[in-house]
């Protein structure tokens, strides 16, 4: 075991993936010698050469179009989009191409060897174009897998699983935690399962569900609630698409209450999808309405970021409201 921050864990996973297969290629804006603006690909060009780890021109639709072709050819394509806020020029290539490659060809061709890494989320004073959480757009697209890790251990295991999974994966990295989150990470190869949620802490009064950076918000809120004698079950969804309905519903049937928190705006966020499914699957077990604690339905602010975000105090209040309903 070694102490790693989330960036080191990502870098370590990429290193393992490149070492095990000489057809693995990493690329994106500033990804080469510089190692990416967050340094996630640091040292990879020196180790594996310019052909396998390189800078691309500033053209997100080109990066993903290129990645689709490369993956269809049989290479393992790991593309970086510098910020999730800038993934939208590539939306067509992801939604109409990556996601539908296998289906539309009757499995003649696929881009299962594609992984798109991109930093997402707020809390870094990034304003509206360096803070967004666009996972719900991609969750609405059959054919994609959407994965979000909460800490370094999860990041390494889930990224290796995403790279090796035979489907295109959009891997959202919580950039607020890149250096802030440090933990024990095995140096050897391991994988964590996609499509599986994890019960991080057992409890009996309410289920708190989140993913990525929002997990530590829920954990903090659960500590506050514990002081009030409320027992929270904390669940990390980990994979947004396809999501683990079974684990979530089992937890809700046990606790009778569900709170979902997300950084993204409330309306049509993934929390809404979860709420719809859970009310249909667990209707007679619910003791209070499903609570969603989310960002406001506004662009991500700058000066008023603290007021905007679904922080631990907002989650704490929502826990009490749910339990005392």
């Amino acid at each position, binding site marked *: 075991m070694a102490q790693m921050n989330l960036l080191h864990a990502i870098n370590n996973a990429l290193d393992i993936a490149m070492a095990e297969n000489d057809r693995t290629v990493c690329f994106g804006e500033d990804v080469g010698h510089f190692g990416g603006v967050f340094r996630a690909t640091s040292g990879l060009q020196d180790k594996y050469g310019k052909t396998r780890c390189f800078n691309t021109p500033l053209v997100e*639709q080109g990066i*993903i*179009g290129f990645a689709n*072709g490369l993956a269809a050819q049989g290479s393992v394509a790991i593309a970086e989009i510098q910020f999730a806020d800038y993934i939208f020029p590539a939306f*067509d290539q992801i939604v109409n*191409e990556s996601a539908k490659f296998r*289906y539309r060809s*009757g499995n003649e061709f696929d881009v299962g060897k594609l992984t798109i890494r991109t930093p997402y989320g707020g809390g870094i004073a990034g304003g509206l174009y360096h803070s967004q959480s666009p996972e719900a757009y991609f969750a609405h697209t059959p054919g994609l897998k959407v994965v979000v890790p909460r800490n370094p251990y999860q990041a390494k295991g889930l990224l290796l699983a995403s790279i090796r999974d*035979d489907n295109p994966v959009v891997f959202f990295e919580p950039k607020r935690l890149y250096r802030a989150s440090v933990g024990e990470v095995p140096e050897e190869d391991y994988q964590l399962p996609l499509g599986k949620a994890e019960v991080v802490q057992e409890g009996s009064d309410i289920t708190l569900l989140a993913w990525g950076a929002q997990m530590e918000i829920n954990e903090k809120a659960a500590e506050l609630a514990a002081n009030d004698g409320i027992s929270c079950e904390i669940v990390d969804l980990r994979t947004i698409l396809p999501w683990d309905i079974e684990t979530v519903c089992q937890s809700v049937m046990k606790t009778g209450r569900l709170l979902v928190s997300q950084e993204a705006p409330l309306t049509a966020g993934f929390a809404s999808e979860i709420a719809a499914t859970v009310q249909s699957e667990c209707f007679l077990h619910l003791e209070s309405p499903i609570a969603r604690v989310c960002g406001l339905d506004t662009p991500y602010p700058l000066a008023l970021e603290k007021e905007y975000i679904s922080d631990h105090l907002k989650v704490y209040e929502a826990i009490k409201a749910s339990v005392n309903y």
Partner: protein
Amino acid sequence: MTTEKSPEIPSELYEKGPVVHQPVFIDGSSVDIPELKILHQDGTIYPDADMPEIDEAHAIKIYKTLAFHRVLDERMVASQRQGRLSFYMAALGEEAASVGGAAGLKPQDMIMTQYREQGALMYRGFSLENFMNQLFSNEKDLGKGRQMPIHYGSKELNYLTVSSPLGTQIPQATGYAYGQKVQGLDAVTICYFGEGAASEGDFHAGLNMAAVQEAPVIFFCRNNGYAISTPADEQFKGNGIASRGVGYGIKTIRVDGNDILAVLKATQIARAYALKENAPVLIEAMSYRLGAHSTSDDPSGYRTREEEEKWQANDPILRMKNWILAQGWWDEEQDNTLFEGLREEVLAAVKVSEKIDKPHIDTLITDVYDEPTSQLKAQLDEVKAHVNKYPEAYPFTAGKF
């Protein structure tokens, strides 16, 4: 105006031209773009022309492909008019571009197309049955009946399945070719698109990345004058598409797209260059879409009969026929037999394929992922129960699972 060469500060940021001290604009007229022509319409060769590598067997294979293309298009447009087929896209008058391109490649080269390049797939040997099964979206379609007619694809023949969004294949071709290069394969990727699709952002993305990332890809623009109803002069102001290649630092060649020998020659030299130099090439083939964009539009609403007549005189298939007749490799009797035989074969194939069952209901959820998820399985079960309840409303699948 005085000019001098050699400024004092060397720069790696751009190639220096002459220095001037009075402002001057440059424009497209600074670049003259030659157009390669080898074959006259009457079948004679331009006297100083560099011939492509071609022998009798190769020429006859190309000609038979062109004939098959013409007949299939005619018959399928007619089938659509009879209501047997939902949709079709013919390539009347520009068949030499797709067939000639494919004929200049090797079987291991990847072909990525827009949608009007069925000629390349025919050249690769896609069977008449495979064409028909795709067109009728039946259970034998390689694409499992999921895409509209003409969205062909074949892994075995290295022909990427067509996708409707325009231009998306262009950066993909760059990535595919890059993978071929990394593996050191004796293979390139050819990427077809129209002059209209070249307005998409993916065109810029794909060409610029191919130049920078040094990918052995042949970009093949079929400039046929129209994007549905929009003529090329409402699509761009520059000198065709070839002028853009220069801006990306890509070796570029313009050819007469109705001259099969010019197309073949350009593709052969492009392949050799791309492979040897690990660099892209842009070919612009000048042609004209004599037919409609698809069976869903009527060109008489946006262009004149006189304009079409000018191009009818440039028929690429007749031009090739004139050449092989002159070579003594072909005669009129063979020609009649070929076309008549093809018409009968196509007609017979329509009658078979249109009667084949639609794909099984289980294919609703396959190939979304490598394995269907539990959610998808549950959704399929719900659909099946519903179909069983109202079988008369779902005749394709009721009673078949």
